């Protein structure tokens, strides 16, 4: 039997930043990723020359870790460009923690950037079309998630109103976040009467298409306190996968987040009842419902009822997607790293008007593909060490 030696609290995110949120015309994706990385490094007095671990996946550059190292003029010892869609960044934090703890590198940067809104105006796909799916013209990725929603509604009685609750809560959080792309009132009725795109989803059930970049800096815990007043320690990490194409997902109502969450909780020695803030990859409204269930915040099938009545909006019973999420804050193709920056800010207590009180434990959860890949991080304050 293998012994799990995950370095609980052995590493920390000491800085995080976003850049070019919403629209950033004229920039290449790499420019944006570098801007976010430099901003994150600046905040803790580091420069590219200090970085010896580099983790990055740009949308249309299959060797972006090499391109970015070249751009920064550095020769990292440890790199990764693992591509599991929007969950890639959580897997990088997991790998970076192991590499840092083993002394393989000292300063790790995890970065992402995309100019998809101003360059293409739509989601850039990086997947090979399957001859067993493409002829049926699913509107991907929307239709894949819509199929999952259809199944959840059929099995558990989840309603379109409950899906809309997720979008409305996200907008209410976004209204507290000056960096969010979408501001303004959004009601359940607005969502229900919006144009249907792929049943049961209207445009309000779907994430934004924006530009944007994010980056975080990770070090070992011994150094973290010198760099940051209140580091966000990495207490646990887990990733899991069940399929690539939606037709190969055994149960459309249960994602691999059950497994990724279990592994992360086990590392951290905490459970869902201990978590103060939850940052989930909400590419579509059904995601939030599925991941709340799969990560143990409510029983399977109860997610729709759990989010009803403003329960995950500001002032509700659980703070979920406090930056406004992929639905109302930012979604530049892959959103996973933005959940990490937001979870870090909440643990550091620097999230401004949307700051949740007394945050000691936060979840950052990434999703990739078509509910295909799930990766969960648990960040904690010094009090949780």
């Amino acid at each position, binding site marked *: 039997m293998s012994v799990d030696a995950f370095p609980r609290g052995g590493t920390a995110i000491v800085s995080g930043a976003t850049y070019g949120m919403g629209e950033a015309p004229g920039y290449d994706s790499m420019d944006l990723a570098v801007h976010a990385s430099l901003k994150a490094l600046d905040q803790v007095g580091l420069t590219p020359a200090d970085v010896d671990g580099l983790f990055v996946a740009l949308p249309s550059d299959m060797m972006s870790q090499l391109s970015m190292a070249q751009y920064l003029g550095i020769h990292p010892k440890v790199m990764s460009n693992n591509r599991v869609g929007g969950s890639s960044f959580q897997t990088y934090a997991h790998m970076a923690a192991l590499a840092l703890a083993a002394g393989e590198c000292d300063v790790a940067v995890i970065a992402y950037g995309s100019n998809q809104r101003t360059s293409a105006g739509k989601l850039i796909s990086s997947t090979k079309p*399957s*001859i*067993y*799916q493409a*002829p*049926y*013209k*699913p*509107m991907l990725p929307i*239709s894949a998630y*819509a*199929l*999952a929603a*259809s*199944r959840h509604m*059929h099995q558990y009685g989840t309603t379109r109103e409950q899906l809309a609750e997720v979008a409305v809560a996200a907008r209410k959080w976004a209204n507290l976040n000056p960096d969010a792309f979408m501001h303004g009132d959004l009601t359940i009725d607005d969502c229900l009467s919006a*144009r*249907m*795109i*792929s*049943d*049961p*989803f209207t445009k309000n059930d779907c994430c934004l298409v924006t530009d944007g970049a994010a980056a975080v800096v990770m070090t070992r815990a011994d150094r973290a306190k010198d760099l940051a007043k209140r580091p966000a320690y990495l207490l646990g990490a887990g990733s899991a996968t069940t399929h690539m*194409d*939606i*037709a*190969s997902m055994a149960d*459309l109502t249960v994602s691999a987040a059950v497994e990724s969450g279990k592994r992360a909780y086990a590392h951290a020695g905490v459970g869902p009842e201990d978590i103060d803030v939850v940052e989930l990859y909400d590419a579509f409204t059904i995601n939030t419902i599925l991941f709340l269930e799969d990560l143990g915040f409510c029983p399977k099938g109860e997610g729709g009822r759990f989010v009803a009545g403003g329960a995950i909006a500001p002032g509700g019973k659980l703070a979920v997607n406090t930056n406004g999420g992929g639905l109302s804050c930012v979604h530049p193709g892959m959103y996973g790293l933005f959940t990490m920056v937001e979870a870090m800010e909440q643990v550091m207590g620097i999230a401004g008007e949307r700051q949740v009180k007394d945050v000691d434990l936060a979840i950052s959860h990434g999703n990739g593909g078509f509910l295909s890949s799930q990766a969960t991080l648990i960040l904690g304050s010094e009090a949780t060490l």
Partner: protein
Amino acid sequence: MEQIRPEHDYEAFLADGRFMIQRSRSSGAYVFYPRVAEPRTGVRDLEWVEASGDGTVYAVTVVRKRPPEKDYSVVLVDLAEGPRMMSRVDGIEPTAVKIGMSVKASVVTEDGKPLVIFTPKGGQA
């Protein structure tokens, strides 16, 4: 042993109007989409067998188009043999396609290529 060339063979059968899936000679388990080996075991004893064409709708969405283009369904169908596939249900309004509906496969030609689609079984529509 005969060589399996998954996409090539599948499309060649379809061109003859035949909807074929795979079955492991040793375990008897059916496989779709086509591969060179059985998932998990890796056993390379898959053979092509004719699908019964019987299935049940497992999940459904309707892709909405702006007129004059027509809306259409995208479904996941559980085949009677076990595997699940993506397809479309024709012969009724896309919004009338329901989870649990019994459907039957047929091979049609679309955009110049053969394609497996489903229609509701008698009495269901």
